[in-house]
């Protein structure tokens, strides 16, 4: 098995200038009752996207046709709270390949990487620039290049480099999967077990 490869992407961005977006907002607990991984994108940001009568909330960014693209840009501390991987699944299933923020919660970051969703961490100042560019022109495009680890605001030419663990980078560039890797390590794991006793 494998994850989808990620090498480079050019796209407009969808802005969500809210901090501490927790995974309960990304996908509320009542939508976690599936036993298979499918359809989670429909309930992405469910309670911000739909009102109590299940009508779309006009002001919410995912309901505005002005904003399109595969890049979600959010305020700091994105993905805090519950470890539910359904949050990463929902974002990916809704068509996003990249999430940009100035700060990611640890478990979310790991879950995203395990599913081919690239978390791009930039400085708070750079994040504000991205929000400003999108606000001025919702069609403005951005480039994400994993090989060079650079995020570029094409409109201004400003670039920010981002960090990624070299191992995880290889996984994403090649579509490798951690579970295959670990299964291939089973003999080493058995030796480790013997060495402990």
């Amino acid at each position, binding site marked *: *098995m494998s994850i989808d490869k990620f090498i480079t992407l050019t796209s407009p961005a969808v802005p969500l*200038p*809210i*901090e*501490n977006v*927790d995974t*309960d*907002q990304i996908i*509320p*607990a*009542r939508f*976690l*009752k*599936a*036993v*298979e*991984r499918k359809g989670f994108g429909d309930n992405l940001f469910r*309670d911000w996207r739909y009102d*109590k009568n299940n009508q779309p909330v006009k002001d919410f960014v995912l309901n505005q046709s002005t904003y399109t693209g595969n890049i979600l840009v959010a*305020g*700091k*501390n994105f993905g*805090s*709270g*519950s*470890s*539910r*991987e*359904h949050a*990463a699944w929902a974002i990916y299933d809704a068509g996003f390949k990249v999430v940009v923020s100035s*700060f*990611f*919660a*640890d*478990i979310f970051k*790991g*879950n995203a990487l*395990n*599913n081919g969703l690239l978390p791009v961490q930039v400085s708070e100042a750079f994040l*504000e620039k991205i929000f400003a560019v999108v606000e001025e022109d919702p069609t403005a495009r951005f480039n994400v290049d994993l090989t060079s680890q650079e995020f570029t605001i094409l409109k201004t030419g400003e670039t920010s480099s981002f960090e990624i*663990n*070299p*191992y*995880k980078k290889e996984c994403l560039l090649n579509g490798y999967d*951690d*579970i*295959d*890797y*670990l*299964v291939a*390590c*089973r003999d*080493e*794991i058995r030796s*480790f*077990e013997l060495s402990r006793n």
Partner: protein
Amino acid sequence: MEATTLFDKVWDSHVVKKIVGGPSVLYIDRHFIHEVTSPVAFVGLEKRGLKVFHPELTIATPDHNIPTIEQNLPIRDELSRNQVNKLTSNCEKHGITLYGLNHKWAGIVHVIGPELGLTQPGMTIVCGDSHTSTHGAFGALAFGIGTSEVEMVLASQCVLQPKPKKLRITVNGKLRPGVISKDIALYIISQISASGGTGYFIEFAGSAITALSMEARMTLCNMSIECGSRGGIIAPDQKTFDYIKGREFAPQGEAWDKALAYWKTLKTDDGAVFDLEYTFDANAIDPMITYGTNPGMGMSINANIPTGEDMKGSDKITFEKSLAYMGFKAGEKLEGKTIDYVFVGSCTNGRIEDLRLFTEFVKGKQKAENVTAWIVPGSKQVEKQAEEEGLTAILNAAGFQFRQPGCSACLAMNDDKVPAGKYAVSTSNRNFEGRQGPSARTMLASPLVAAAAAITGKITDPRDLM
């Protein structure tokens, strides 16, 4: 020898190998699974044609979506029933021990692990649930994982993890009356923010921490994830050993002596270096309550909500959005505000000591008429003990009833939902928007603050009634 931290000792002894420039292959001693975050992992395993590598090291129990009444009947909600059935069939197929809904050892996964003696010092413990950090109270290295990682553990008994940085939080001094470990947790998070621990693993130390009971330590480590950290750990001591001894899965005889000798080595050496340190004074902590929509938005129960005047940019947007959701005004007091619901339970505060504190407080008093109270024991064993100790009778006399064990209104996956717009004082761990039901308004607090609110029907400083 170089001085090392408790965290390093446990982590390093579980590294099977380190990938150059990458994470470590970390061996897992104990894996807990529940019905919500495990089914997709089993689907993945089967697609790969793999068997569970060590079925005997995984323990399962349903807790997240189950009803807290009529547990003897089939679960009415079809999706919940399906998940619980799936957990059962996956365990049967793969030879995993399951403590099912009516088993005498069933309960919230982070309550049953310690009470069965499955949680021991020096272990690595994971579960597809962020509050796995609870087990750190025993000097175990315990943290929450995602479903892909659940599949990793099932497939290889290992996870791939980058090593977190180390943060020590020292709390010295003596807690004042009416202040308990939940208040320490909410106080720390309010001081360092809901993201202040991100990237770190916390060791809690200091005289106020060692003075805590095991259950109080569990509450603190449970909440360590709420400041963003991967987990919290406390060095095991005599209290830890006494708690474990004689429990169902505790080592016995020679194995006990051997384990104990090892456990006694599990502490941070003098001079060991942390990446970050904070020190707090226990005496400065009041009973706490949250006013906003993340656990970092907490304050002393008799304080005023911040004015927000010094905030700007997305900080201000977030603060205002949060208060608008809660229906509160910047700068106002919470004390005296009418509430609608009280929830006592969860992996944070659903243990026997929490129920004792609550019961002792409400003994001889009466529940306020405007309050709906849900008192949910953390496990079947807690439920039984509460009955045997006479807590049930005292609670009933005061107008309260126990429900049956489960995660319940902490995340409202079952029917225990706080209605839209209603205010709940909750002993659980998260006050996120919609956490306890769509548009529900949660204020996190200790069992004592919850008890005071349940009696007066208002936000009340418990010290006023003690």
